[in-house]
């Protein structure tokens, strides 16, 4: 390590690790830390180096979690303290049914779940999307609902599973957090399938609103305001999720 190492007792020849041994040692520590065993791809292009929303959020979480590392072994407080692993998923694809298309309007997001390690239990999952004040004369109160796309149907609407509903005002600005934990039961069943989340916006009187017009930002937003998903896991012997 980098710190002052103890001097070996006299007469004990200090052995330098050969390059192969050093690589083996590194691989061992990587395995203990659960880190991917290979360097990241080449540095992304300059534009992509701007701080993105998910890493920024995760860095805040890291500082919060590192702060209570010393309390390890104490009573497990809810939420963050109980998590062994927090994964953020950047949004891969976005399908929008916006103005000009038939109603209802929606935004759909896809997430690649293949990286979720086996043997972890989802204790919480949330979808985060940034909202700007709406620039269109909309009713003051908007209802944002989130569904999981359970099955696409060729000749009719997809099968959807309700996840969360949040009520906000058209002029609100900031991160909107939607609870998608209920979708995680299905992840354990078919891990290799992408997760589809569909977001609808309605006015007080039930009229469908294009989420973009309501000020909700998607993939085309600045990197620091793009939507992402965060999932909290806890190592568990049995894969079923503990009811929240």
């Amino acid at each position, binding site marked *: 390590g980098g710190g002052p190492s103890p001097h070996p007792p006299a007469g004990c020849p200090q052995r330098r690790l050969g390059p192969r041994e050093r690589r083996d040692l590194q691989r061992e520590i990587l395995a203990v830390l659960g880190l991917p065993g290979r360097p990241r791809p080449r540095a992304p292009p300059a534009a992509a180096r701007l701080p993105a929303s998910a890493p920024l959020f*995760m860095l805040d979480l890291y500082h919060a*979690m590192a702060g209570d*590392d010393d309390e390890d072994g104490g009573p497990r407080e809810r939420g963050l303290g109980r998590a062994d692993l927090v994964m953020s998923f950047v949004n891969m694809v976005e399908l929008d049914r916006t103005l000009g298309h038939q109603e209802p309007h929606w935004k759909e997001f896809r997430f690649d779940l293949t990286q979720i390690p086996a043997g972890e239990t989802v204790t919480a999952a949330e979808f985060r999307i940034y909202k700007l004040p709406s620039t269109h004369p909309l009713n003051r109160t908007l209802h944002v609902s989130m569904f999981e796309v359970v099955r696409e149907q060729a000749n009719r609407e997809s099968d959807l599973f309700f996840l969360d509903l949040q009520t906000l005002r058209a002029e609100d600005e900031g991160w909107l957090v939607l609870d998608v934990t209920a979708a995680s039961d299905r992840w354990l069943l078919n891990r290799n399938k992408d997760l589809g989340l569909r977001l609808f916006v309605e006015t007080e009187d039930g009229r469908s609103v294009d989420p973009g017009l309501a000020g909700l930002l998607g993939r085309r937003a600045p990197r620091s305001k793009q939507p992402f998903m965060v999932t909290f896991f806890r190592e568990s012997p049995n894969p079923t999720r503990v009811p929240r």
Partner: protein
Amino acid sequence: AVRSLRRRLPKKSNELPQPNKLPGIFDDAHGSHGRQVCRRHELYVSFQDLGWLDWVIAPQGYSAYYCEGECSFPLDSCMNATNHAIVQSLVHLMKPDAVPKACCAPTKLSATSVLYYDSSNNVILRKHRNMVVKACGCH
């Protein structure tokens, strides 16, 4: 017969031992034969030195520490010794070839958290429990 104590036992101090200082029977940190008494030593795992900072976002490394030192009789209260270790070190005195001394090992461990990218560029935060030695003792 227990070896006669070379010097009066220091007044028992009731404060807990500093994690990196476990005074034994002798005031200084050296036990019999000049070996150190069981205590915690610095060990820093540097992700920077290991060349991993291209995918570990934080931290640059962490202090893992390790335990080393003698567990020689008498294991007074400052050495975080279990009752069993006290008996074992006494028996070791009587039958050194049959029963080894107690071991200097971690008595309290804490976690460390690592923030890194996975191969899909997702950002992962993993808390690793029992990775940092908080205190050592004789077991």
